[in-house]
């Protein structure tokens, strides 16, 4: 709870700093605030977790680990923001404030124990993002993305609320623990409850952006400013998954015969839609958007075959995915700043101009593709291992095919960087302007962590006693 209070105060503090025109202090204060929040999160690690405030929130290890991950990723993304927001407009303080509030929402979703908190958390997270997506007011794509995200988000919230209502109608409670009691003890689970489960499934699938509820994802990720895209595709996606997994693992496991086929269909559609569309893209940013859909599909594995390994595997997968995404989007910002485009062609010959940037991006791509010695491999391995444990051979084969397809489009970037020469307008630029120090730090930290976790995954697994 300390972390959430810290972040709330931090957001308001940032607004005041903006009021008094102390723009230089914004980033350091935000980072210090995040560190304090991280400290509060980690200090609660060894305490006994019990639902607090009349069962509203619970800070168990599951919530704390994902909260820490969200805070760290946000800190990395904020480090990238130093010069970024200044190019968009004058109101920098508000952007920081909205990102921090969005993170607060994510932490609430991580720790909810009552549907009221889930709803409030998801709304705080999304409302801040609706604004952030549209902060480039003169850019048509950004406006379209914001409107689309807002309409789709409002629509999916409707589904979510209707689902919550129906489940309340059947069981008379919003509390996850009481819902579990209802599911295990009731002689016949009311059809209302099944309807509620289906609607909540739809709402949450909208939020995490899996097919066939993915239509907003490419346009929104493409139209939003790159930094916001990286925040959306990491922190927000992870938090939505945590909420998803918490609902299903605490309350709905006894009903798995009902929702597993539904979820299985969704996973298979997601994998194929995400990978096949990513294959056809010519823009790096749009490719990342579709690849995030397919990664959401892989993360759903943990919910399809729900068990004690679900939490560690989704944590490792989310960490690997978030680190790699941060590298990829940071590299994209640098490349776009130089060439003005986010097509694959602008990556041509990057290895000659900026060898270290190209190297970090290569690590990220290998990690996303799931090549051994990177964190992405460990994540995919644990996910596949879960599926193998439940003898779901069809899903395993389909997933393996998709992983192979994914290698193709991730390596496309690497091929562009190392084996193609820059043509046309950029041919003259033999050297790239040096990356700012904050980019170097973020790229370095994320790349090293990706390798370290890939070689020695026990660093993370020990958190869960594995």
């Amino acid at each position, binding site marked *: 709870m300390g972390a959430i209070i810290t972040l709330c105060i931090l957001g308001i503090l940032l607004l005041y700093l903006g009021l008094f025109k102390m723009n230089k202090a914004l980033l350091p204060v935000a980072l210090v605030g995040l560190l304090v929040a991280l400290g509060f999160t980690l200090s609660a690690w060894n305490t006994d977790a019990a639902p607090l405030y009349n069962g509203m929130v619970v800070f168990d290890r599951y919530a704390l680990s994902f909260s820490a991950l969200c805070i760290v990723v946000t800190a990395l993304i904020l480090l990238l923001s130093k010069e970024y927001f200044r190019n968009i407009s004058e109101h920098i303080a508000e952007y920081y404030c909205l990102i921090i509030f969005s993170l607060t929402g994510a932490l609430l979703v991580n720790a909810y124990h009552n549907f009221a908190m889930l709803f409030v958390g998801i709304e705080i997270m999304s409302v801040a993002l609706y604004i952030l997506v549209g902060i480039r007011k003169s850019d048509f794509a950004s406006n379209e993305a914001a409107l689309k995200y807002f309409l789709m988000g409002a629509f999916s919230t409707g589904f979510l609320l209707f689902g919550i209502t129906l489940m309340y109608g059947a069981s008379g409670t919003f509390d996850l623990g009481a819902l579990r009691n209802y599911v295990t003890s009731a002689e016949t689970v009311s*059809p209302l409850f099944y309807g509620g489960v289906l609607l909540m499934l739809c709402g949450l699938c909208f939020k995490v952006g899996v097919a066939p509820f993915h239509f907003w994802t490419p346009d929104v990720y493409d139209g939003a400013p790159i930094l916001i895209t990286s925040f959306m595709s990491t922190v927000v996606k992870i938090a939505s998954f945590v909420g998803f997994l918490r609902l299903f693992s605490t309350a709905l496991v006894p009903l798995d015969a009902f929702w597993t086929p539904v979820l299985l269909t969704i996973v298979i559609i997601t994998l194929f839609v995400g990978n096949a569309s990513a294959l056809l893209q010519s823009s790096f940013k749009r490719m990342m958007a579709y690849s995030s859909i397919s990664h959401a599909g892989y993360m759903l594995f943990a919910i399809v075959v729900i068990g004690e390994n679900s939490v560690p595997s989704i944590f490792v997968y989310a960490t690997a995915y978030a680190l790699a995404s941060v590298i990829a989007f940071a590299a994209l910002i640098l490349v776009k700043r130089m060439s003005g485009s986010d097509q694959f062609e602008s990556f041509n010959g990057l290895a000659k101009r900026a060898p270290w940037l190209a190297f970090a991006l290569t690590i990220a791509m290998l990690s996303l593709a799931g090549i051994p010695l990177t964190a992405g491999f460990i994540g995919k391995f644990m996910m596949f291992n879960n599926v193998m444990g439940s003898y779901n051979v069809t899903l395993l084969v389909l997933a393996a095919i998709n992983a192979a397809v994914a290698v193709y489009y991730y390596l496309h970037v690497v091929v562009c960087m190392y084996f193609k020469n820059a043509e046309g307008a950029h041919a003259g630029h033999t050297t790239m302007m040096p990356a700012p120090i904050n980019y170097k730090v973020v790229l370095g930290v994320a790349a090293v962590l990706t390798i370290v976790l890939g070689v020695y995954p026990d660093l993370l697994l020990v958190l869960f006693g594995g």
Partner: protein
Amino acid sequence: MSIFYFVAFLAIFFALMTIFTKNPVHSVLYLVITFFTLTIHYILLNAQFLAVVNFIVYMGAIMVLFLFVLMLLNLNEDTEPMKSNLVKIIGAIAGMCLIATFLGAFRVIQPTNELVAGNADIGLVKNLGKVLFNEFLLPFEISSILLLTAMVGAVLLAKKEVRKA
């Protein structure tokens, strides 16, 4: 019970009129009437607070806002977006799926259900306040962050950018 059926009929009738009428201003006015019928439903259910909020906020504030936006948008036949038949068919199928799910879920509802009839006074303002400030205090407080976020966002989007020369 007869009042209920009459009001329910009116609600569905005006909701359909909202969709089928061609003129957007008429559509909004029908929506206002639909909300009014819903307010009557809330009163029938003894939910005072919901009825009042629905009446003031939805019917009053939001619908007036709708009308203003429509007035500013200046909609006419030419600006109507293209609707292909494929979209209509897909929409119909999806809607029917939703109705099937709901009917499947609602078939067991009985008015004598203990959850429904357990406490008839639960919708009174007094009881609502007790629940809100005891059990649901944390979400209530956290909602302030939600409102603050929305407020900051609205100002941010509406504020004029100062162009650097």
